[in-house]
């Protein structure tokens, strides 16, 4: 009996691989991809709700503005034209008149107004408010609406069917810099309340979901995949693909193996994976991540010596950041002179803090600081910057510092622990990244201590002066040229005063099978959004 059972099991095991698999039918254009690798796959398909996921959002919805193809500028998407009054407090936007939702209804300014009122409702149930605030907090009446004191966001008004107006509470010459995540929802098709935003199945139900992007939901298996089918009314033309299937991979290794096995045709990849891929079969896309990686000092909790500029300069000279970027980080990162990761704004007078351990020792001696006085630095690492490559880079930094007598120990924390430790000031230095896009840079929370839950450097005013005034100048710079020039000046100030210790900015990578034609991808922070022209993608047999 047992023998028969064993034989039966073996035969079954051998037969199973031969079972038919339902893949693309003849002539059907189907593209399998891993567009969003890593945790968070579920909520990533819901605009405004999460810190990333724009690469999926823009497949189904249309924002007012988008990043350009390499995240260096902002461009209108469903906005046709826009203008402001003289003091940049009132902005008038004209929508394209050829934008339709997937059910054939036209997208109008009334949908823009509906979305603004809906997303700022006091009971809106989102995972965090960052993206809602980014889009709407600068608009007059936001606080009243959010606190339930107003029935609408009064600063957003419909002028006519295709024209709407923003009235801002403070001037902003580059208001569009905060409108890339302003997706417009169909007033006629939203059948749930703001309080049900996260819990409704509307987002994934093919019978309910309506969007104005190139695709709509065709099928959805939570944490497995989302299948998109064409929106025949898409304003840039009906997509060539019959189906776009984005598989969810909780782990990059799994995604890379699926890519290598030919089950998906695109995935994010780490730089160390690229050499393992067949160079004839895959095209590698890469670009600036615009995420600055740096050490910040908790001045309130660290030895007072860190308030001496010469000690911070010694830190910079002691570490060979270029060698780490070239060797440890395998050439995938560039050295930063300041936290602004945009080379085009740099001035000529920046100190590159080239590796000079003797200079580091001299500076410490000049400051009258014995490295042992600094104790052992308690470093904490944000989990987003603790991948194997980054860990190696941190260890190399640790070794360089030890060479001039500065000791440091690293703690790797998960996200809740990181934030708790950060707020409790229970560390000396933090190692983390900061998204720093050219528009909407983290000026207020980084440089002014005026709020935000970002990286306001605790006790930063021990180290730096003049930043608040510079931030104000940047925010009010009327033209793009003046704006970038002021950003350059900010970088220069940082470079001189070193309130924090800038390290690197990384490249990000994606690998696409050459079967995909007319494919474009850029590793934009949070996925963009940018116009990837997904309506043009197709798969060559």
């Amino acid at each position, binding site marked *: 009996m047992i023998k028969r059972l064993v034989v039966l099991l073996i035969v079954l095991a051998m037969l199973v691989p031969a079972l038919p698999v*339902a893949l693309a039918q003849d002539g059907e254009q189907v593209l399998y991809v891993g567009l969003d690798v890593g945790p968070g796959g579920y909520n990533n398909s819901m605009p405004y709700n999460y810190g990333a996921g724009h690469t999926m959002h823009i497949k189904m919805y249309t924002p007012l503005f988008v990043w350009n193809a390499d995240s260096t500028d902002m461009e209108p998407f469903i906005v046709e034209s826009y203008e402001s009054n003289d003091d940049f407090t009132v902005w008038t936007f004209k929508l394209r008149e050829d934008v339709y939702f997937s059910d054939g209804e036209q997208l109008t300014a009334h949908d823009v107004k509906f979305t603004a009122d809906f997303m700022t409702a006091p009971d809106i149930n989102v995972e965090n*408010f960052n993206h809602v605030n980014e889009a709407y907090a600068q608009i007059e009446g936001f606080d009243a609406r959010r606190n339930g004191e107003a029935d609408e966001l009064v600063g957003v008004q419909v002028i006519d069917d295709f024209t709407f107006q923003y009235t801002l509470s403070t001037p902003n010459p580059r208001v569009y810099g905060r409108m890339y995540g302003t997706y417009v929802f169909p007033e006629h098709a939203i059948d749930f309340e703001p309080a049900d935003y996260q819990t409704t199945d509307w987002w994934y139900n093919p019978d309910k979901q309506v969007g104005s992007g190139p695709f709509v939901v065709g099928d959805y298996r939570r944490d497995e995949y989302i*299948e998109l089918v064409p929106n025949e009314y898409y304003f840039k033309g009906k997509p060539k693909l019959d189906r776009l299937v984005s598989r969810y991979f909780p782990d990059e290794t799994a995604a890379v193996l699926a890519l290598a096995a030919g089950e998906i045709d695109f995935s994010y990849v780490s730089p160390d994976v690229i050499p393992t891929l067949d160079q004839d079969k895959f095209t590698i896309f890469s670009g600036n991540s615009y995420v600055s990686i740096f050490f910040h000092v908790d001045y309130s909790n660290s030895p007072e010596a860190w308030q001496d500029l010469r000690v911070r300069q010694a830190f910079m000279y002691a570490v060979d950041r270029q060698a780490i970027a070239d060797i440890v980080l395998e050439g995938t990162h560039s050295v930063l002179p300041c936290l602004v990761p945009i080379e085009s704004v740099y001035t000529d007078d920046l100190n590159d803090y080239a590796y000079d351990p003797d200079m580091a020792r001299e500076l410490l001696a000049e400051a009258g600081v014995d490295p042992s006085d600094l104790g052992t630095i308690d470093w904490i690492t944000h989990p987003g910057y603790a991948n194997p490559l980054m860990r190696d880079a941190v260890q190399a930094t640790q070794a360089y510092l030890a060479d001039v007598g500065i000791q440091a120990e690293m703690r790797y924390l998960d996200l809740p622990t990181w934030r708790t430790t950060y707020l409790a000031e229970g560390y000396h230095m933090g190692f983390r990244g900061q998204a720093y896009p050219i528009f909407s840079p983290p000026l207020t929370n980084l440089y002014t201590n005026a709020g935000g839950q970002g990286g306001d450097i605790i006790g930063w005013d021990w180290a730096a002066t003049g930043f608040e005034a510079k931030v104000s100048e940047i925010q009010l710079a009327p033209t793009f040229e003046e704006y970038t020039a002021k950003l350059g000046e900010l970088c220069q100030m940082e470079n001189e005063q070193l309130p924090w210790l800038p390290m690197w900015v990384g490249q990000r990578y994606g690998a696409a099978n050459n079967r995909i034609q007319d494919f474009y991808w850029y590793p934009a922070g949070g996925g963009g959004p940018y116009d990837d022209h997904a309506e043009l993608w197709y798969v060559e047999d």
Partner: protein
Amino acid sequence: MGGYILRRLLINIPVLFLVTFLVFSLIEIAPGDVVDYFISPDMMQYTTEEDIQRLRERTGLDQPFLVRYGKWLGRLAQGDLGYSFVESQRVDELIVAHMKNTLPLMGAAWLMGVVFGISLGVFVGLRQYSVWDFSLTGLSFLGLSVPAFISGILGLYIFSVRLGWFPAGGMRTAGGDSSLGDALYHLVLPAATLAVMDIARNMRYMRFAMLEVLNQDYITTARAKGLRPRLVHYRHAMRNALLPVITIVGLSLPQLVAGAVFIETIYSWRGMGSLYLNAVSGRDYPVIMGVNLVFAVMVLGANLLTDIAYSAVDPRVRFED
């Protein structure tokens, strides 16, 4: 027997209560909460303190520890496990959905572990110091010592990437029609990978137990009586040797619902292991509590089942009412 089972069940109620209190306390001690999980400083420049307070109120985290625990217990008494903050779904629905995926995976692995492990254990136990004994025992060392994240990646690389025999992860063909064949096709590789360790462990226990039993006097007696070797080996030796193996196999029953974090992650399998891991990472205490409750019930149940199985296998074991 019935009275014994009833008594054991009643004892388990305060044990379960204690388990929930301990787990709730541990979550409380752990640094941070789900709101901290939502707020990543590198991307949250527009989030304000008022927003965070709003989130804390919505999730009930502004309440004291004992109030939250009391509320959780109160809802549990009404059969409500609460709502996941991270997944935005009812905890009972989440657990059922993930368990539906975990049971076939872990069940298949467990079954393979029992069938192949015990069979091979008997096989090599009867052939001590043979080539089979040395080679299979050596392989079992390998099976036991290779961690799941290595065997998982190796399995995927060899059988999916290189040979193309099996899919590279997933529980079904994405965007395709669901069918039993398709589900089995996706199940084989992760289940077999998981089973490697079970087979190796069960084989070693069974081999050791067989060798011990085969040296007992009653086996010598059975042989001296002229019983056929097959009868001696399988009716007398194997049945007695199964006793310690049953304990091991029985105690591994909770694994059926616990899932396997690494294998689920590598094979993109939406199971209990990944659910639990994500819940812990996000301090999603309703899910952590719900899953732990299920685990605790399973462990207590498995212990009871193991005791009952003893009496079935060994007539000397009897429970008094």
